[in-house]
């Protein structure tokens, strides 16, 4: 009886571990879509009102809810750049976004891409600036779509493998 219960628990634990891996993938996809939305909002603000980047951050931050999330980070970023202390945009961006990105499930190259944002958008011309920011949005949108496609297969494999591992462990332990 105890052995049967133990085997069930091992199986459930293995399936749970697999589900956790699937959940992380889901969170990464949500975060990729979030950055797609944020960069899209920024590009829209630049196209519509031609406001400066600190004001773009404030405006985009206002549109995203929550102080703990990305909205709060963007609002803090905008405020720091407007408070007259004269800090460099790259430094402030790296400090604020770097801290936020550490808590996400994004891949290192995706984090690097986000951290490179201030250096990548320094155009003299409004249309080119908008295009450069929109390119970030498109890039993350493509990554999110690829991740959604891959997720279906990967989740199946992950779940199958984790249940199989669990079954094997249960047999070995029995």
């Amino acid at each position, binding site marked *: 009886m105890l052995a049967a219960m133990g085997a069930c628990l091992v199986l459930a634990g293995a399936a749970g571990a697999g589900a956790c891996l699937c959940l992380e993938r889901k969170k990464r996809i949500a975060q990729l879509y979030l950055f797609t939305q944020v960069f899209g909002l920024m590009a829209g603000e*630049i196209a519509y009102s*031609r*406001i*400066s*980047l*600190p*004001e*773009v951050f404030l405006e985009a931050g206002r549109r995203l809810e929550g102080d703990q999330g990305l909205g709060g980070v963007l609002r803090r970023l905008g405020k720091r*750049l*407007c408070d*007259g*202390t*004269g*800090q*460099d*945009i790259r430094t402030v961006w790296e400090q604020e976004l770097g801290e936020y990105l550490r808590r996400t499930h994004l891949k290192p190259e995706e984090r690097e891409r986000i951290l490179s944002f*201030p250096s990548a958008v*320094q*155009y*003299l*011309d*409004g249309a*080119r*600036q*908008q295009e450069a920011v929109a390119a970030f949005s498109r890039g993350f949108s493509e990554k999110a779509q690829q991740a959604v496609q891959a997720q279906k297969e990967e989740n199946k494999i992950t779940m199958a493998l984790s249940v199989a591992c669990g079954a094997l462990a249960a047999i070995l332990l029995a």
Partner: protein
Amino acid sequence: MQLERNVIRLFPEYLRFKWRSVAGLGETLQEIRLRCEKPVILYAGGEEWFLDGSGKLTRDRERAQLLSGEELAQIVKHICRYSLYAYEEEMSRGYMSADGGFRVGIAGEVVLNPDGSVRNVRYISSLNIRIAHEAKGAAAPVLPWLYNGERLENVLILSPPGCGKTTLLRDIIRMVSDGNDCAPGQTVGVVDERSEIAGCFQGVPGNDVGSRTDVLDGCPKGEGMMMLLRSMAPKVMAVDELGSREDVNALEQVLKCGCSVLATIHGASYEELCRKRFLQPLLEGHVFGRFVVLGRRDGKFAVEQIRDAEGRILAEGL
């Protein structure tokens, strides 16, 4: 202190130690001239100063430190908040508006549109930072001359650059808007094309322009005056630096609607003003009831003359 803080804020954090003595010049500071690989030149109290490597002011050109291209580029980026694109329109007209209501003139390599008009300026090599002063009370001696009973006359303020036209206009706006000994407060509409009058940030005036003042920031004068007229029903309309036939046409429309007008224009004297062709319709029609002519005395702006519509001198040396 506010002015000093605003001057310091023009520079990136890592360069600020050099600019503390410049900011310390306070109200006497008029212009900061920055040129690539050339000495920094300051104009304060009518005198010329240089900046040495340690950030001290000197009159000795030999001790003056040259401004590197990198520092100039960083200052430009900082002034335009790392968003050159947001200043495209202003840069095509040769300036940028900085926080604190300062206007920064620019020179460099011009980018042209296919039709030959100026599109932008790249490789900026010179900056002229004009320090905006808020001189509360500066309009007090002038104000009684500008009213006819309780009605504010149409007023044109003229002077050469750097003699305080905008400063005086700002204080007249404030006193007209808040009310003064001559008349109760009136609604004032300000079209602040170059953000110099009100020094707006995110649409909110940084300078005190009175409690009954509505500001249209960064809007072309002609269009802005019509917008305010239609939407905000001002009793007084204020604009800075009339300079074209289009401005005059828009002003004529405003006058037809019964608004009083406060405006400024470049000009060394009343006689020079009378020779400006684009202004002839307004001068011939005796539209302006008062002309305030400004000059410099002891490094500060001073009202040299106030004239009536016929050009007769009403007051001198205020």
